[in-house]
């Protein structure tokens, strides 16, 4: 039986080189050639600076922008490294809230969020969709549902002083349906929508 230790060791070392270096390096080379944008994180540049990734959501607080879903990501507390503080859309620490459905704290904070979002959108024309008041699994969800965008549309139109119908047409151009009409859900990429919004109706600086 002791004879088996040598092949076990040699095979482990050989496979580590083959699968741990050879395979990922080869894949990086091929993928970088075939799909250069995706392989480097689908980054979006505007005027020479990176403004984000098409796949990573970001925080929007201004009333002129469509807002992303809530995010439960955190960061180390600058005052005490053993603790964490909320840091929404922190793309080096992806996480969900992991809140239990029966948690008192969760239900109370959701209620507060519902009240806040309703107050921010007094002219909303549809009921508040659930994805706008729930944190995503990654805390980095780049999308909101078309309903969550429609809910905010009167506020954004008012902030820009434009007609809702015009804005609705822009949103429609940014709305993606299910993949092949079957898979997943309809969605709007919030960063891309806000970039399109900036392009069409630039914010006064």
């Amino acid at each position: 039986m002791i004879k088996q230790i040598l092949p076990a060791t040699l095979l482990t070392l050989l496979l580590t080189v083959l699968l741990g270096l050879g395979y990922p390096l080869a894949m990086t080379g091929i993928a970088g050639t075939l799909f250069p944008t995706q392989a480097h994180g689908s980054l979006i540049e505007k005027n020479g600076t990176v403004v984000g990734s098409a796949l990573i959501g970001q925080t929007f607080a201004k009333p002129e922008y469509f807002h992303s879903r809530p995010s439960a990501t955190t960061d180390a507390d600058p005052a005490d490294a053993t603790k964490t503080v909320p840091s929404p859309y922190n793309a080096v620490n992806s996480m969900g809230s992991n809140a239990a459905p029966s948690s008192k704290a969760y239900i109370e904070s959701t209620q507060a969020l519902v009240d806040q979002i309703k107050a921010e959108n007094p002219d909303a024309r549809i009921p508040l969709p659930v994805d706008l008041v729930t944190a995503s699994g990654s805390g980095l969800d780049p999308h909101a549902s078309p309903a969550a965008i429609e809910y905010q549309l009167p506020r954004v139109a008012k902030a820009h002083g434009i007609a809702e119908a015009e804005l609705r047409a822009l949103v429609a151009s940014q709305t993606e349906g299910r993949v092949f009409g079957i898979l997943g859900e309809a969605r709007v990429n919030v960063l891309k929508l806000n970039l399109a919004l900036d392009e069409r109706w630039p914010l006064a600086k």
Partner: protein
Amino acid sequence: MNAAGILQIVVYFAVLTAGAIPLGAYMARIYSGERTWLDPVLGPFERAIYKVCCVKPDQEQHWTVYAFSALMFSVVGLLLMYAVMRLQAMLPLNPAGQAAVPPDLAFNTAISFTTNTNWQNYGGESTMAYLTQMLGMTVKNFTSAATGMAVLVALVRGFARRQSKTVGNFYVDAVRSILYILLPLAVVVTLALVWQGMPQSFDAYTEATTLEGVKQVIAQGPVASQVAIKHLGTNGGGFFNANSAHPFENPTALSNLIEMAGELLISAGLVFAFGRMIGDKRQGRALYIAMALMLVVGITVCYWAEAAGNPLVQAMGVDVASSDLAPGGNMEGKEVRFGIANSAIFAAATTGTSTGAVNAMHDSFTPIGGMVPLVNMMLGEVIFGGVGCGLHGMIVFVIVAVFIAGLMVGRTPEYLGKKMETREVKLAVLCILIFPLSILGFGAVAMVLPAGLAGMSAAGPHGLSEVLYAYTSATANNGSAFGGLSGNTLFYNTTLAAAMLIGRFLIIVPTLAIAGSLAAKKIVPPSAGTFPTHGSLFIGLLIAVIVVIGGLTFFPVLALGPIVEHFALAAGTLF
């Protein structure tokens, strides 16, 4: 629940079955040592590996030597991975400057990846260097999967051979699993995932300035090459903390389908390969139907519970109805691009198999929705299960099922022409008893020790569910979590590592003992008194045995956790 969601479940099973049948035929050839179309390319490579590593491919092993080889292969890999994590600060390819991984966390993680569990008490993008993800995680994803596949093949040979002293050569089975099955599939899946948007580069973390002028640092890395094998090998350890919920680790609904199909493909294919290798395809088909039926039930219950949503959130005037414009349901911890149906399929598939990747946070599922993954694991990871492990776990249940059927008619039970005698039944029962012993044993200890109680993030029954889920996931070598549990403590790092080792090796060794014992037996031709094991009667009996054993064992603790939480939530009681 809506038609669009149900259609996606149907599409999923169609894709899976269409892939698994041809793959099963191919794998049967690989393990029988037959030539395949990849031989001209990989054959010389395979022989070179044996030569360099001092493996004698023609030398067959007794089951004890086979088991010892599997253990040694695991131990050496475990030590190497531990070393890489401890030394990562001094090694290259660490653009984010990650520090050395602390000893107890490195110990837990090395065991976790060696046992194909891939439980993660760390956040990938905030803890592990690129080199660690490659040399440690990626390599282990291949080797731990290959170990499971090899053990299964040995067991299948036990049925197929007559009066044989040996069950095959472990190193040959492991190398052929990697070279001919896992690696070619991983290459194809990697490229498909990058096409869908998954990063694959060694770029440092990118600093972006958001539209509102805030700095956002975006973690990336060689993600796709690791994620591909993470699913194919039913490993499940994420490159990122949020696992397949992270948009870089699962960018689109199509990548989601690839990942969900990928994690069942080999396990399902092996069921068909089993039928071919024993020379009776009907036997493989029967097991496939039993597994698929249980998976359909799990997906349906989970989808129904999650689509109904959280009654208290609905009471706030929030719209939880699903439509073509909104996913609806319980969206806490879920991503818009997947919605409810895909989160439910993923949750059931990842826990029916021992993958443990998640595309939604199970901790935030409704009580019944979250109970589905828990029950899937408690049933022994036999709903397709881990690559190799799932089917050998299922065959253990088959042995118990034919034993029970034999008791009913007063005949010596047999399966595939092999008589199931005292030794095999005892070993099978041993495999089955390991589960409750580890899950309930460790769970009970955690429930009375302050160090165990301190880890819970939720109060009331959900806190019990978190701890229960952790030890179930570790013992079942699954790796998914109710993520609210603070597992990165000395207590949880150590006890979870122990549960993972028990769940892996205390099942592999008795399974190989069964293989050795079966291989030595004669094959008895079927007679009029033989209980047919390919019909619907047997499928029903098998499912009943699995559910009754799992149900009787775990119902009391489930009643104290998710079931009571469900009724409390309906009554508006919070914790």
